[in-house]
C-alpha cells in the first residue's frame, strides 16, 4: 500500500484536500482518539496567506443535491501565526509514531498550502516554508484573482507558468500546484505548471457556484461572500474527467480529488492516472472517511 510521491514515502495513497480537515481543531473534538487513528498518509494544511484573514461574513454554507457550496474566505492566522503556533503543534502530532493507518511507523508528512495575491507575497510565503524542516512539501493555491486583471492566476497558463517558476527558484522542497477547474483548458494549465517546475499537480479544486437566497423575490446571493465553491459527490464525474485529461498530458504525478466518498471512487481516480487521492467533503460527513477509504484500497 505504501506509495512514493515526490520523494516522500507515504503509508497509503489517501491524503486530505486542503481546508477540509483541521487537525488542531479535530484534536480538541476527539482528544487522543485522533492521534491513534490519523486518517491521512500526509496532512495538507488550510491555505496560509501572508497576512491573517478573518474569512467571509456568514452565511458560509449551502447544501446542494449531493454536495455543498462553501464560501469560507480562507480564514487563517497568517504566515507568522502559522509558523509560530500551528506548525510546531502539527509537527508534534505527526511525530506520534502511532499516526499511521497501517499500524507501521510512517511519520505523516506535512504539506503546507499557501496563496499569495502578488508575486512578492507568494515569494515570501514560499521562502518562509522552504526554511522550515517540519514542512515536507508546499502546495500552491493559484485559485486567486490577479489583483490587476481580476482573472484567476491559475486559469491563465502563461501567468501560471511564471508564478510557478518564481516559486520553484525559491525552494528545493516538492512543489505541488493545486489547479483550478474553472479554466478553459485545464490540461494546458497543468502543462504550464509542469513547465514552470512543479513536482506535481493536484485537482480538482471546487467549482465556482452561487446559491440564491430562499424566499426572496429578487435574485440575491445567499452566501456572505457572494460566490462559493461546489464540492461533494456532485462534482465527482467532473473530477474524473479533469484528472484523466491532465494525467494523460503531464509526466509529473497527479493528486486527484473531487467527490471521493469510497474506496471505489478513489480507485477510479487512481485508474485514470492519479498517484494520490485526496478526500475532502466526505470528511465533513465522517471525520474518519480518509481511513475508511484507505482501508478499502487494501
Amino acid at each position: 500500500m505504501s506509495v512514493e510521491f515526490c520523494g516522500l514515502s507515504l503509508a497509503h495513497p489517501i491524503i486530505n484536500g486542503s481546508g477540509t480537515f483541521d487537525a488542531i481543531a479535530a484534536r480538541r473534538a476527539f482528544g487522543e482518539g485522533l492521534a491513534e487513528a490519523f486518517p491521512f498518509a500526509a496532512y495538507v494544511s488550510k491555505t496560509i496567506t501572508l497576512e491573517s484573514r478573518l474569512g467571509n461574513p456568514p452565511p458560509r454554507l449551502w447544501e446542494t443535491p449531493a454536495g455543498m457550496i462553501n464560501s469560507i474566505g480562507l480564514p487563517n492566522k497568517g504566515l507568522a501565526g502559522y509558523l509560530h503556533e500551528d506548525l510546531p503543534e502539527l509537527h508534534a502530532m505527526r511525530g506520534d509514531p502511532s499516526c499511521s493507518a497501517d499500524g507501521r511507523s510512517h511519520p505523516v508528512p506535512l504539506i503546507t498550502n499557501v496563496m499569495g495575491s502578488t508575486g512578492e507575497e507568494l515569494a515570501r510565503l514560499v521562502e518562509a516554508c522552504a526554511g522550515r524542516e517540519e514542512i515536507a512539501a508546499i502546495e500552491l493555491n493559484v485559485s486567486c484573482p490577479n489583483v490587476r486583471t481580476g482573472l484567476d492566476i491559475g486559469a491563465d497558463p502563461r501567468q501560471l507558468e511564471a508564478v510557478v517558476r518564481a516559486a520553484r527558484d525559491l525552494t528545493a522542497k516538492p512543489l505541488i500546484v493545486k489547479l483550478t477547474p474553472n479554466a478553459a483548458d485545464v490540461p494546458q494549465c497543468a502543462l504550464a505548471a509542469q513547465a514552470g517546475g512543479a513536482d506535481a499537480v493536484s485537482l480538482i479544486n471546487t467549482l465556482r457556484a452561487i446559491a440564491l437566497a430562499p424566499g426572496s423575490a429578487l435574485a440575491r446571493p445567499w452566501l456572505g461572500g457572494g460566490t462559493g465553491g461546489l464540492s461533494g459527490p456532485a462534482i465527482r464525474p467532473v473530477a474524473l474527467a479533469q484528472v484523466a485529461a491532465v494525467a494523460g498530458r503531464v509526466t509529473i504525478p497527479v493528486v486527484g480529488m473531487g467527490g471521493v466518498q469510497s474506496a471505489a471512487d478513489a480507485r477510479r481516480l487512481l485508474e485514470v492516472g492519479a498517484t494520490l487521492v485526496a478526500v475532502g467533503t466526505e470528511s465533513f460527513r465522517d471525520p474518519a472517511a480518509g481511513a475508511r477509504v484507505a482501508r478499502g484500497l487494501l
Partner: protein
Amino acid sequence: MSAPDRVAAPFGRRLLEVAGVDRLGIYRVLRVADPDGPQPVAGQFAMLAAAEGWGGGEGERPFLPRALSIARVRDGEAHYLLEDVGPGTRRLCELTAGQQIWVHGPLGRGFTAPEPGRRAILSGGGVGIAPLAILQDQLEAAGHPTLVLLGFRDASRLPGAGLLRDARLASDDGSAGHHGLVTELLAAELERDPRALVYACGPAGMLEGVRVLCERAGVPAQLALEAGMACGFGACHGCVVPRRGGGYLRVCLDGPVIDANELDHVDAHAGAPA
C-alpha cells in the same frame, strides 16, 4: 468551575440503532440506543444522518448530517428533540425503532454550573428547549435548583414542555401560560432577583433578546447557539458567529454554548441547512 465543559467524541461516526420515537405535539423525541457512548456534558451536540434514505428528498437533499443538541441521556439511550423544518429533520422524524442512524458526537462545548449564590434560570424557546432538559437533569443531580421558563409558538408545540420538569410557560398565541414572549417572563424574574445565571437556547431572535436583557441587568448568560454546519468538529469553518471585538467564533468548536459577553450579537441567518 472545575468540571470540564466538553467530553471528547470517539473519532469517526458510529452506526447506532433507533430505540424509538415518541411524539410531543408536533415534535418528535428520537431515542438512539448508545450504551457505550461517552456521557455528554449538557449542551453538547451530535451530527446525525439516517443510514438509509439520506438524500433524494426535497431538492435531492439532505446531503450533510444535521447538528442536534443532545436532549437527554437515560438508560443507555441518547434523546434528540426534532421538529420537521426541512429535508434533513424530516427524514430523521420518519425514523422508526430498529432502523440505523449515523451518530457522530458528543461534540462542542457544553454548559458550566453556576457559581455559589447564583440560581440557575433555564430559558428556552421552541425546539431549542432540548439541551435545557439534560442541563436540568445534571444541575439538579448536582444539587442546584432550577427555574425553567419555556416559550412556544402555539398549542401544537406546547407538549414540548413535557421534556422538562416544572416549567413556567409562555405562548405566542396565548394558548397556555403567559400570553407573550418567554423573554418577558425572564425580564420579570431578573427584576425580582438578579443573582442568577441564565441558560438559554431557542430561536435567534429570542437569544438576542436574552443577550440584551442579561447585559442590561448585569446577569451572566450562557447561550446555546444553532448554526448550519457541515462537519461539527471545526474543519469546515462554516458555522461562524461574530465575536465581540471582531472576528468569528466557530459554533461547533468554541460553542455551541457561548458566554453572552463573548458575542457581538446573535445573528439570525446562520440557520440553514435544516
